[in-house]
């Protein structure tokens, strides 16, 4: 019992210390013109809290230390922003225009916000006057099709579906065929959440791809990897695996309305040079906005 209370105390202590660090703003450090060793270490910890990862933070700190050696006074915020923007600007996103039928596939691990993002995107495209067809490619998760149909209603666009347990590649094929025949601008395909480590599920994405190509040879035109902003370093593995298995063209970062800042996209973009097309900032139909690197970096440095 004594051991037990001792432990509890330790937890409390840990919590207090944790909160202290969590709550201390980055701002006061970024405003300094000179940083001593302790302040640099503190800054390092704060950057790590944004999920930038050890490697990216090391690089940022190296640059700061270098600048500190070089000049008497520095502007830490401007330096960090500069470094981060370099990474984020590497690859601009292509505009979403539909000269012919464009097929968009949404992929990602479980629960990140694929279906919701698809619903928002459908509403957006429909809102600017283009035709959209939504394909219920998640035939696995409980009520996934019902969820998507409700989003279809919300967006005012048709949803094509088969029964639960059906073949996602088959329904994707049907969707592409119908859209091509009617000249629909956009085909948005929802897929079941899958962990990137499950080879057989990753192969299923390739099967969907191939069946789309039977109808529209250059489909899918966009493959959006949906990432949850609360994700830690595992996001890197996710991005690498989905890029390889599904030919990801763009990232979508969801749940940025929470307290997580989605810093893991920095190490991801350092490796994969992908654009971030959109960010999700809520559960409502309008809560999908184009990625703004500047605002994003401000968010990161505002932890």
């Amino acid at each position, binding site marked *: 019992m004594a051991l037990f209370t001792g432990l509890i105390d330790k937890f409390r202590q*840990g*919590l207090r210390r944790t909160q202290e660090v969590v709550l201390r703003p980055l701002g006061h450090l970024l405003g300094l013109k000179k940083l001593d060793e302790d302040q640099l270490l503190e800054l390092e*910890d704060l950057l790590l809290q944004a999920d930038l990862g050890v490697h990216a933070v090391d690089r940022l700190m190296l640059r700061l230390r270098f600048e500190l050696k070089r000049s008497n006074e520095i502007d830490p915020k401007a330096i960090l922003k500069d470094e981060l923007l370099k990474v984020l600007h590497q690859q601009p996103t292509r505009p979403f225009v539909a000269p012919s039928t464009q097929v968009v596939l949404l992929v990602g*691990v479980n629960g990140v916000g694929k279906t919701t993002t698809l619903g928002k995107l459908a509403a957006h495209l429909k809102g600017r006057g283009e035709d959209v067809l939504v394909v219920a490619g998640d035939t696995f998760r409980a009520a996934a099709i*019902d969820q998507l149909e409700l989003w279809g209603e919300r967006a005012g666009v048709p949803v094509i579906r088969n029964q639960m347990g059906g073949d996602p590649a088959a329904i994707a094929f049907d969707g592409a065929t119908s859209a091509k025949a009617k000249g629909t601008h956009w085909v948005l395909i929802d897929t079941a959440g899958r962990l990137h*480590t*499950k080879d057989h599920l990753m192969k299923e994405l390739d099967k969907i791809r191939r069946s789309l190509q039977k109808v529209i040879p250059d489909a899918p035109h966009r493959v959006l990897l949906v990432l949850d902003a609360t994700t830690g370093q*595992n996001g890197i593995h996710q991005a690498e695996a989905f890029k390889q298995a599904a030919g990801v063209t763009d990232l979508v970062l969801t749940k940025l309305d*929470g307290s997580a800042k989605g810093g893991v996209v920095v190490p991801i973009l350092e490796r994969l040079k992908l654009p971030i097309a959109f960010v999700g900032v809520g559960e409502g139909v309008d809560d999908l906005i184009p990625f703004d690197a500047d605002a994003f970096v401000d968010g990161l440095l505002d932890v």
Partner: protein
Amino acid sequence: MFDSLTEKLSKAMKALRGQSKLTESNIDEALREVRMALLEADVHVAVARTFLTRVKEKALGAEVLQGLNPGQAFIDIVHKELVEIMGGQADEKPLSFAAQPPTVVMMVGLQGAGKTTTCGKLAKFLKKNGSSPLLVPADVYRPAAIEQLHVVAKDAGIPSFHHESKNPVEICEAALKEAKLKGWDVVILDTAGRLHLDETLMAELSRIKAACEPSEILFVADAMTGQDAVRSAGSFHEQLGITGVILTKTDGDTRGGAAFSIKQATGRPIKFTGSGEKLDDFERFHPDRMAQRILGMGDVLSLIEHAKDKIDEKDAERLANRMAKNQFTLEDMRQQFQQVSKLGSMTKIMGMLPLPGITKEQKEQMAGLATDKRMKHLTAILDSMTPKERANHNLLDAKRKRRVAGGSGRSVQEVNQLIKQYLEMKKMMTQMNDPKFMTRMQRMAGAMKGGGMGSPF
């Protein structure tokens, strides 16, 4: 770019090798490596710092037990501390029940964490243990959330509550009444995902809590969560007083440092883990396994879980049993080879194995077996042995080896290599199953370096 965490720890140990005491200066290097390992596993920075201070205190005073070198002693301390903080031995009852049924269990958490799925898993688990649960859909916001819970309930063979109200508090209260009336002894409330920053929705949870007096408020957290875990879990706990945690999506390759962060931020026990989308993919939380995972030590169980998808489950289980009993034979190796071709991504599996001292290249070489045509040759050699020889490799004297070589069209040298490889595998498996594995890591690393691990390939 990321070295495997295992490699980092071996490096940390190497830094201490050959020194007889744990001192301030020799520990610091090792602590830095452990810090890196923790951060790459997504343990919160501040949590990692507190932990390292604690480890350092322990380590400095520690006596190095006989038979251990300082490196081993250090790793042992790190591991033990982590296990202790994450919950020690999980032996108590996982859930507390109300003195007066029904017991109310409330599932809460961020969006998409896995609450609805976990409700079904928990209900099924409880039913197996003799309870009669009722599932209650209290998410009136997410499209088709109610339908989703009904489907999950049906799959689990558990009744779910139907009510036309759009008010979560009303739904929960009505469900409680119904449960009392009909004798359901556990009521599981599936609440909508929400941000801890959302005051209105957090207040709604408090109202449900006040109305239903739950015995358990379980925070469902995604194992892939990064640094934010401390904030979200801490804030849910502060606002609601959670009683425990369920960690979902552990079936991927995340290191799961969030588990440690959440435990530290809330002080509440992690009770269960979810390891798949199916309703049976649900286990009691094992602090020991989790600690190994966070530290990147691999774990033969997650290896088996990974292989489960492809390998016949019975075979995997049988193999695990044989490994546990140290009965791994050439026959097992043969069957394993047959499975390997089904497995595909051996690299990933090798990455999960705790093999300090084996470099990434060596692992890749070993993984390369899966596609290599030598795989076929090895199988041919094994096929040419008699069942007795496969059951007992000691029977293979020079004469028999020549026969096997002739029968398979390979050279005697290749037969020898195969046997050598078999012995290495057997040794690896013994190591992995030994509870004192930690303290053996170094010895093993030495053996690997001396032995011909690289040579068969």
